[in-house]
């Protein structure tokens, strides 16, 4: 059972929004007393996901939440875009797979940096990625 304690939505449409988003994620992580390494992990993960959103879907929304599982608090980020969607999620989650000209580390790398990772995508409708990092996870 995960409870949401606070919720903040940020619209991402240009590169400056990315800097703003990273700062907000950092503030939120500091607020729940997340350690420095975990802060770095979640901000890096956010950076990867927001780049995907900018590149493939021209932007979207990010919801930053402080969540609680009872004993421990964490940061949950939900990235939603109305882009082209991902036809083959299994392939996109593989290291080195990319339809752009990148290294193909974004999605699988992000999954390794966070505690919970969920991706839903419908071709032609968009993609939603949800990640959770616990303060001590």
């Amino acid at each position, binding site marked *: 059972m995960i409870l949401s304690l606070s919720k903040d939505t940020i619209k991402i449409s240009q*590169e400056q929004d*990315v*800097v703003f988003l*990273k700062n907000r994620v950092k503030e939120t992580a500091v607020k729940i007393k997340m350690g*420095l*390494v975990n*802060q*770095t*992990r979640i*901000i*890096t993960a956010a*950076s*990867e996901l927001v*780049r995907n959103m900018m590149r493939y879907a021209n932007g979207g929304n990010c919801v930053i939440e402080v969540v609680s599982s009872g004993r421990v608090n964490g940061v949950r980020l939900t990235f939603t875009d109305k882009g082209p969607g991902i036809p083959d999620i299994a392939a996109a989650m593989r*290291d080195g797979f990319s339809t752009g000209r*990148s*290294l193909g*580390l*974004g999605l*699988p*790398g*992000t999954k*390794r*940096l966070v505690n919970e990772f969920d991706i839903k995508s419908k071709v032609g409708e968009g993609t939603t990625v949800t990640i959770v990092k616990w303060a001590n996870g």
Partner: protein
Amino acid sequence: MDKIPILRMGSFLLVTIQVDLYDRLALNLEADLVQMVQKTNARGVLIDISAVSIVDSFMGRIIGNIASMSKILDAETVVVGMQPAVAITLIELGLPLKGVHTALNMEKGMDLLKSMIDTPEEEANDQPLDDFVAE
């Protein structure tokens, strides 16, 4: 538009990144730096990232690119001052930065560069001294 300054020190180029990089800034740095290597005949590039708190796969790729591009222009690249948390995230991301030389701090990075490159000036300076000793 922000710009990251590139300083010249002898046959080395010095870059200290004091702001958090965003994509455009990193791409500009890559282009500027490679231009500067050619223009100044630099033999080594020292990049200080001690003030950078986040390096994601894109930034990591740019750092790798700078190193490979400089390499084929006959200049070595050393990245110094990486924060431990950044090292952890880079490896977990799956980006071991192969082919990029690293050093813990500026001083060690400078020593590493000097050991990799015997600069022509030093050779020129050494020559008369050797002759003198020989006499």
